[in-house]
């Protein structure tokens, strides 16, 4: 394509956007809203996922042994657990130490012992760390299968509830964004259709004097592409600034809410939004060109 022809297309597309300025704004705003929500959802899902992983990697397995196993057996079980695949660290907490920890919380050791008739009621237990948070459940089950192990605990419920939230969020997000995206797409189609309609005389004459199909189509294609690009550009900027704001607000409490501070994620998701919006715009105009611009 010649440079001055490209210039002509750009001018025509800009003129056409301007001619139906309210329609153009509505279409761009619709792209902006759906792309902003997409961005917000993406970051939300990423972060909840991140937090869940974070929690899980801090979660230990506590394996309580049967009360009456001798220390010798406890040590043997510790070796067995250490040999399990995925286990990184196993600490044996003897029942005496357990009692001490308890009494620090409840007062004197003697009182506790007295209350239980002079017998330490606690079992030995093992604190187990695993390499991969995803494997925590299978490791826990393997430990439970070892003879002499009474009970296995890990922060299963919290973590699983979080992952359930993530799953749920994903579906909800996909649904809402698909609907909004469809809305944006149809607004773009409508805008281009209107533009084609308001220029139908010109298009007609262009055909008669021998303009090529693509010469006629290009300005409309550009128009749709720009609507997508403008809308998603605004959305990406809003997502970027919004996320920075959230990070700043969370700032001091970051220990409890470990948000993703990686600039890469933010960069890629904003770029993704712009790409997505442009795609919506391009698809919308291609569709309109096929349907309404039979050249």
């Amino acid at each position, binding site marked *: 394509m010649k440079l001055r022809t490209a210039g*002509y297309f750009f001018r025509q597309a800009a003129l056409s956007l301007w001619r139906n300025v309210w329609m153009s704004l509505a279409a761009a705003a619709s792209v902006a809203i759906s792309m902003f929500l997409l961005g917000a959802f993406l970051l939300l899902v990423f972060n909840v996922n991140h937090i869940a992983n974070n929690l899980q990697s801090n979660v230990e397995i506590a394996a309580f042994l049967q009360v009456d196993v001798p220390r010798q057996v406890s040590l043997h079980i510790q070796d067995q657990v250490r040999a399990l695949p995925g286990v990184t660290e196993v600490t044996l907490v003897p029942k005496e130490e357990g009692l001490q920890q308890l009494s620090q919380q409840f007062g004197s050791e003697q009182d506790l012992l007295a209350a239980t008739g002079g017998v330490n009621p606690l079992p030995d237990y093992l604190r187990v760390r695993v390499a991969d948070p995803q494997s925590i459940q299978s490791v826990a089950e393997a430990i439970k299968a070892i003879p002499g192990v009474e009970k296995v605990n890990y922060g299963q419920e919290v973590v699983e509830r979080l992952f359930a939230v993530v799953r749920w969020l994903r579906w909800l997000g996909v649904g809402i964004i698909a609907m909004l995206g469809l809305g944006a797409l149809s607004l773009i189609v409508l805008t281009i259709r209107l533009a084609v309609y308001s220029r139908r005389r010109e298009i007609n004459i262009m055909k008669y004097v*021998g*303009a090529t*199909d693509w010469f006629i189509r290009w300005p409309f294609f550009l128009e749709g592409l720009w609507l997508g690009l403008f809308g998603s550009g605004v959305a990406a900027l809003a997502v970027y600034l919004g996320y920075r704001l959230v990070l700043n607000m969370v700032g001091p409490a970051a220990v409890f809410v470990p948000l993703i501070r990686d600039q890469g994620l933010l960069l890629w998701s904003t770029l993704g939004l712009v790409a997505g919006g442009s795609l919506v715009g391009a698809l919308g105009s291609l569709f309109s060109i096929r349907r309404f611009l039979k050249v």
Partner: protein
Amino acid sequence: MSLIQFFNVTKQYPPNITALDDVSVKIDKGEFVFLVGPSGAGKTTFIRLLFREEVPNRGQIIIGGRSISRLKRKEVPLLRRNIGIVFQDFRLLPDRTVFENVAFALRVVETHPREIKPRVEKALAQVGLSNRARMFPHQLSGGEQQRAAIARAIVNNPGILVADEPTGNLDPATSGDIMKLLEEINRLGTTVIMATHAWDIVNSMRKRVIALQHGRLVRDDREGGYGYEA
């Protein structure tokens, strides 16, 4: 070989309208041809087939040695650049000056900008509208608007000019001027094909007349008259 050849051309529209029925005709380069016939005879259809707005259901149309129903989509614009088209209702763009209306035909076929001004001026001079270049269509008389449309049709130097009832909206005196203009364009080498109802014009010009009726070619006279009112 003739410039334009129709071989047994039939054009049907759904559901079962036969607009052209087995028409065969040859038109040579440089000819001036009237296409006559009552309303609904198939004149406009004939013209639309010529610049491939429609394709025939049967038969062949050859222009400049090429079958135009076999043209690829991409080749159709090139065919049309060699055919200037004029309509009864002028079809000028109301929001542009006469100059811009004519220049439009050059711009959209990617003519070099340097060539546009001299070529538009030449075309406007040829139709006698040099002093109306800056005016808008609504400021012109019907005859002047049709001249502007003719300038647009010839600015790209087409070998063929087709006109579908170009005088249909004009009074007799203005029609006469337009006919003189078309004759002049023809004299400079352009093949002119004109569909018309105006029997007085046809009778006075003594050009070739191709008559259609119910889609059939019923008469083809070298120096004919309109013939139906007679």
